[in-house]
């Protein structure tokens, strides 16, 4: 045996000894190398950090008017001491709003509402949508036809218009807005899950399950559904971005979060007529919405690339 042969066999042995990587580990490795996912995850981590630590880092309570407590007027421009604002003036990084509240504190607290909105609505839509889609795909026949035609009807309305109509029926308020956005998001998840179930149910291991007499619902929940998670995770991440945008739009129109709740859409809606006199009150909440939505969009795109082996480079 030559030296080269020995080295080659050592390398081969090393590879053979290494435990095989699971698909999740593969995906994680791919995700770490996707630039957009890293940027998205970083912005999202920053937003989550802000949401969690808002009570610590916010200089003022979000709903407290400062009138009579400090020498500030309503809709004052941002004052940052480091950037040359006189030291005798109270510091308000993003100025004050129409009710003389510290706008920076309100923007920080707004992160809590927006993230909660995103996760709750998408969670709700995934639970209902995935269940309906899985049943439609697995059962086929008339249940499939009824469920999917219902989804088609829901999809036939522009999402925001339908959400507006639903909120009107249910009444204004954040919870009803969440429910409305959740309802209009259901068809997307039902379709994705149904498509995956239709593919997976023809795979050999599912046929084997059937052959040995495993109960159908057990096959669906144990063998099929775990394989539909990948597209759902991607769709869900991108769906959170849309949900945050729609919730902000509803609040902007006065149908979602109600005053004095610090919610970016309603903060923007309340001050929209002041855009020419106090543009900072419109700029900062909008920027916050954009950054949060951007983080989910980038992460969703990265996840899609990482979780779909066909897209991996």
């Amino acid at each position, binding site marked *: 045996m030559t030296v080269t042969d020995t080295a080659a066999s050592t390398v081969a042995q090393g590879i053979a000894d290494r435990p095989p990587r699971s698909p999740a580990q593969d995906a994680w490795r791919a995700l770490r190398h996707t630039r*957009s996912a890293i940027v998205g995850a970083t912005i999202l981590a920053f937003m989550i950090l802000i949401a969690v630590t808002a009570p610590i880092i916010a200089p003022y309570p979000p709903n407290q008017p400062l009138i009579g407590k400090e020498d500030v007027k309503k809709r004052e421009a941002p004052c940052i001491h480091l950037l040359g604002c006189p030291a005798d003036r109270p510091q308000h990084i993003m100025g004050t709003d129409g009710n003389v509240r510290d706008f920076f504190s309100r923007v920080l607290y707004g992160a809590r509402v927006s993230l909660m909105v995103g996760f709750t609505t998408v969670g709700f839509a995934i639970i209902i949508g995935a269940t309906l889609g899985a049943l439609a795909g697995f059962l086929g026949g008339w249940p499939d036809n009824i469920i999917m*035609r*219902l989804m*088609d*009807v829901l999809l*036939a*309305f*522009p*999402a*925001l*218009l339908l959400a*507006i*109509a*639903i909120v*009107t*029926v249910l*009444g204004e308020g954040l919870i009803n807005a969440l429910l409305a956005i959740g309802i209009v998001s259901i068809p997307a998840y039902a379709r994705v899950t149904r498509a995956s179930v239709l593919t997976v149910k023809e795979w050999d291991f599912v046929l084997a399950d059937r052959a040995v007499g495993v109960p159908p619902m057990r096959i669906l929940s144990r063998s099929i559904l775990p394989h539909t998670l990948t597209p759902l995770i991607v769709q869900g991440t991108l769906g959170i*971005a849309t949900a945050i*945008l729609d919730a*902000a*739009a509803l609040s*902007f*129109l006065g149908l979602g979060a109600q005053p004095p709740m610090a919610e970016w*859409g309603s903060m*923007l*809606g309340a001050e*929209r007529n002041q*855009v*020419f006199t106090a*543009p900072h009150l*419109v*700029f900062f*909440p*909008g920027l916050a*919405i*954009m*950054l949060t*939505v*951007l983080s989910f*969009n*980038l992460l969703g*795109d990265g996840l899609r690339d990482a979780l779909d082996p066909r897209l991996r480079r």
Partner: protein
Amino acid sequence: MLRFISQRILAAAPVLLGILFVTFALARLLPGDPCRAMLGEKATAQICDAFNVRYGLNKPITTQFGIYLKDVARGDLGQSFRYGRPVTQLIVERLPVTVELSLAALIFATAVGILAGLWSAYRRNSIVDVATMVIANIGVSMPVFWLGLMLAYLFALTLKDTPFQLPPSGRNSPGLIVPTIQEAWRLDLQPGPLNSVLSFISNMHLFSSLLTLNLPVFWDTFRHMILPAVALGTIPLSIIARMTRSSLLDVLSLDYVRTARAKGLSEPRVVLRHGMRNALIPIVTIIGLSLGSLLGGAVLTETIFNLAGVGRILFDAIQARDYAIVQGFTLIIAAAYVVINLFVDLLYAFLDPRVRLG
């Protein structure tokens, strides 16, 4: 192909029926009594009874649905409680504003989106590509209402007294008279379908002023349209740019493109003639689907830019519980959405034989 078309049209029929049911149910589920919402303190029990009889609200709900279906089939979408006028008349007045805005936004989004995506794919991994995709990602994440307000601030205030100043609201400058097509062409028409069609087109100021060669009105409307169209079109633009890039990159890696290059064809010819034609298939789908989201986004854009379109009237009608308007406008929008999707499906089949043969 004919079989495919008839299959798709048949599949759309139950969806349309479902839409009719949902719009009917939604309007009936609105909380509060329409009589009290309309008449306020004047609404006594006697007046409300008469009101319910007049609008058929005293009949069983199934009968009301039957009457509704029959009326819709005859093109009668009911009478608005609030305006005391037929809903079809209000649609002729308001829908053109939204259609014109959505089309302007779509043209802007498609033209700029395809060019940006094409350029990005052509210069893959260059600074231009990275910058375009970063901007596209930011564009798709921007709330329409925020972008609208920021554009208004930038172009109406910051760039005031420069050649780039643009009006921040309204369809036309105050005092500008926009003649209808009937007036411009001196047509004396009786009320009827032709008159309604001409009124509909007249309310699309950009298009009608072009038809009647009224350049001052065209220029004024065009300047007013820029900001709303850009605000509304930015999200679809970003989506179209991203889709064009990825679709073109997929196609450019195929064997037949390599063959085209091997034959010695110039690079622009390979990309535009051979690549772009096949890359267009998913782009067409995205453009069609964007039109639906544009109709939704138009509500917000109309609110910000003070445009009297469908979004505004629908929003006001929901507040006032004006059943007929809510029903009529939601029905028209949803039906338009279904027809657009059907059209996109057919176009898709026309462009890609695998769809109709599969």
